[in-house]
């Protein structure tokens, strides 16, 4: 088991480094000059100011040197200064990440809590109404464009029915709490500010449903397929033949064996939620990482792009690592191999 973990860890580090090298090279092949974009027209036409800004950002150094600065900075927990916001990237990340983590986590829980039982039920009652409902939900979830879905739910539940609050993390007139973790639900609960807690929770409902859409669809579908396969196995037939109750057969025999693909997918889905919330965040004016990633990419903000790439790579690799570990727990044969 230990050897398994160590070898997995080693591969993970190499993967992260490779990802940063690839992104660094890609970002540098873009023909545009980020400095011209960030300076005003007068400054951008002044060679002295342009050169000064370039030197300040280290953009005048050779490629290998810049990568080296990135790597050594990384080891010291320093991602450099953002070309767009002109402040340390780390500070930007600390400001924007919590909103995304909070939204992605709620969405993930939502898609698990709804998707798993729905998938199981759909498999157990194959071709019944609940199966059709599950298939419909997963179809919509996977195929509806997030942007469109976001607008529709916002227009219906906020604009028309007035059931849910509008865009943003909090009501316009409420004061944001002093950040402790930056996660509003935790920060407000910590100090016992339940009014703001409710406000924050209510603002999470629509965006998390929208963001959960695609993940929910995938989890439902995968669970259903895996369950169907499990249910057709010999040991399930034996269990049934023994006269065990259906609930026991499903939950005790079939489900654990169907979990492997679901766990793989679930892990990746969470990483995806963290990295891919751009559309949802845009429509809901959510001050998160997705929007930051998008602006950084458009402006070719090297330090920000590199920082986000590293973090996304770490998240994906870490999630994969955990998934691999959980395989070993779910299926003892994996570790022995």
């Amino acid at each position, binding site marked *: 088991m230990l050897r398994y973990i160590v070898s997995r860890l080693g591969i993970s580090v190499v993967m992260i480094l490779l990802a940063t090298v690839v992104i660094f090279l890609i970002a540098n092949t873009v*023909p*545009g*000059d*980020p400095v*011209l*974009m960030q*300076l*005003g*027209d*007068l*400054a*951008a*036409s*002044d060679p002295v*100011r342009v050169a000064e800004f370039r030197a300040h950002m280290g953009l005048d150094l050779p490629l290998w040197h810049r990568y080296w600065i990135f790597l050594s900075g990384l080891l010291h927990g320093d991602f450099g200064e953002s070309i767009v*916001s*002109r402040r340390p990237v780390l500070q*930007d990340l600390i*400001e*924007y990440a919590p909103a995304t983590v909070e939204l992605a986590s709620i969405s993930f829980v939502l898609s698990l*809590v709804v998707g798993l*039982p729905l998938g199981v*039920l759909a498999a157990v009652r194959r071709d019944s109404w609940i199966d059709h409902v599950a298939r419909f939900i997963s179809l919509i979830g996977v195929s509806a464009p997030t942007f469109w879905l976001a*607008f529709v739910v*916002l*227009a219906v539940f*906020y*604009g028309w029915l*007035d*059931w*849910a*609050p*509008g*865009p*943003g*993390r909090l*009501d*316009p*007139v409420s004061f*944001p709490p002093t950040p402790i973790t930056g996660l509003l639900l935790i920060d407000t609960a910590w100090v016992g500010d339940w009014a703001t807690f*409710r406000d924050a*929770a*209510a*603002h999470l*409902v629509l965006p998390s449903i929208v963001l959960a859409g695609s993940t929910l669809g995938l989890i439902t579908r995968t669970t259903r397929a895996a369950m169907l396969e499990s249910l057709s196995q010999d040991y399930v037939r034996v269990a049934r033949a023994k006269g065990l109750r259906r*609930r*026991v057969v499903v*939950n*005790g025999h079939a489900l654990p064996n169907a979990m492997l693909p679901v766990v793989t997918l679930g892990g990746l889905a969470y990483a995806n939620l963290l990295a891919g919330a751009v559309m949802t965040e*845009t*429509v*809901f*004016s959510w*001050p998160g990482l997705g*929007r*930051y990633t998008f*602006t950084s990419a*458009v*402006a*070719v903000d090297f330090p920000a792009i590199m920082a986000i790439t590293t973090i996304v790579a770490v998240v994906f690799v870490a999630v994969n690592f955990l998934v691999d570990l959980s395989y070993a727990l779910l299926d003892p044969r994996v570790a022995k191999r």
Partner: protein
Amino acid sequence: MTETKTKLTIGRRPFVAGAGGLLGAVLAGARPAAAQNAARKATLVIGLDISDSISLDPARVAQYSNPLPCHAAYDSLVTFSPGDYVNLKPSAATEWKMLPDGKTLRFKLRQGVKFSSGKAMTAEDARFSFQRVMNLKDQPQQYIATIGSVKVVDDHTLDMELTDPTQPILTIIAAPEFIVMEKAVAIAHGATDAADAKTADKATTWLNNNSCGAGPYRLTGWQRNQSMQMVRNDHYWGGKPGYQRVLIRHMSESAAQLLAIQRGDIDVAFNLIPEQVAALKGNKDIRVEGATSLDFIYMAVVNSPDNPALQKKQARQAIGYAIDYDGIIKNLIGGHAVRPTSFLPVGVNGSTEALTKKIGFREDLPRAKKLLAEAGLPDGFSFQLAYGKAAIAGVSYENLAQKIQADLARVGIKAELAPMDQLNLRTMYLGGKAQAVLTFWNPPAPENLLWAAASIDRVSKRVHWDVPADVRANVAAAAAERDLAKSAVLWEKYQESMIDAANQIVLIQPIYQIAVRNSVRGLRLTAAGWMAELDKAKPV
């Protein structure tokens, strides 16, 4: 084993009921009569895309959305009132004049102006503020490079010595970058006006979240991409401001702004597109106010080394006479735009719509064909038209480019469309490598020379225009002329030469459509660069 497993399962019905109950509980009371309660009424909520703001330290303001809070928090010496971008108005200074030496401007400061701390404003505060901008050397400094020194004469008199008095300065220092901040408070938070301010000044972090000015509101917080908060400055010299708080809420999506203003969650929506504005027609609670901007969308036509046809003046002029300008304004922006003659927007001295009708480009196909024949290109020519994947005032460059392509085809000119991302476009255009570009111009201050100098010093390089000496001399004379009527004549002459060179074809100067709830009175929109005057805004 079987027992525990059974206990873990939750029945379907209780599960559904539980989930529904939870959702209901979260949402119930989530809309606490917020729109009605007293706190909400005393708060002005502005919906605006603030993602471009990178600083609220006035000395570092160089974006589109941050002048609004800076202008609300600080007073400049002089200002422009909404709708009049020709005649300066007093603000923190009540009078100003050029001393007999011809290079020193003397300002008399208003009596009784107090900062939000309650302390009185003195000339030393003003001197410190200008000196800090000058030594901080961030982008705003470039525009006041003509200020040699600033000196205190007495508590309410300030002298500003200019190195080149022919360069305009008064119109520029009306902008929110050049305001008066309270010296003592700024220094207490790390500010300095010393020569090494560029590295020694540490006040920006504090100034990003607080203000120390004499404007109607005081900044109390800024969460990036989220909101900016301001509270009333009870010491404001212009009378008690109407709201207790002002919140600028970040809303990047115009559709979200539309929903929010309809629901009453925001009072002002700044970024609506023409279709959304149309949707508000007939709404009893919301009015739409138009504000003619000083921004414009133009097509740069380059004397491109790669395109022999474009090097001919008549060929470029033919483009100017082949475009259906009225069609563009009517169909692409719903009629909410004006069109200046050339590189000076309608509203500044010497630029009017009447002048455009008189000497500007207009749709005249026979003339375009005649010009093509004169250029030796009777069958037309082709060129590459580059544009970014973006939209201004709801007009996408893509649609505009397609419209121009269709218009030009009528006289045999073929525009090959080249969409690209803004970064590449700007790099290519600034590097002088484009053939034609659709792009946008917005000024840092309503000063004619800022447009004219750009067109003959910088944009001219991008379009490979070798500016004739007489055009340069005329611009210099117009800028140095302090008599507005006389300078207007010179500015007209400048525009004539721009039309003749035909390197910039100005297409749209938008009249921004801002939605305001009728519960707000006295909010005045301005094109001077800071969007709105908040001092007289009040709830009804």
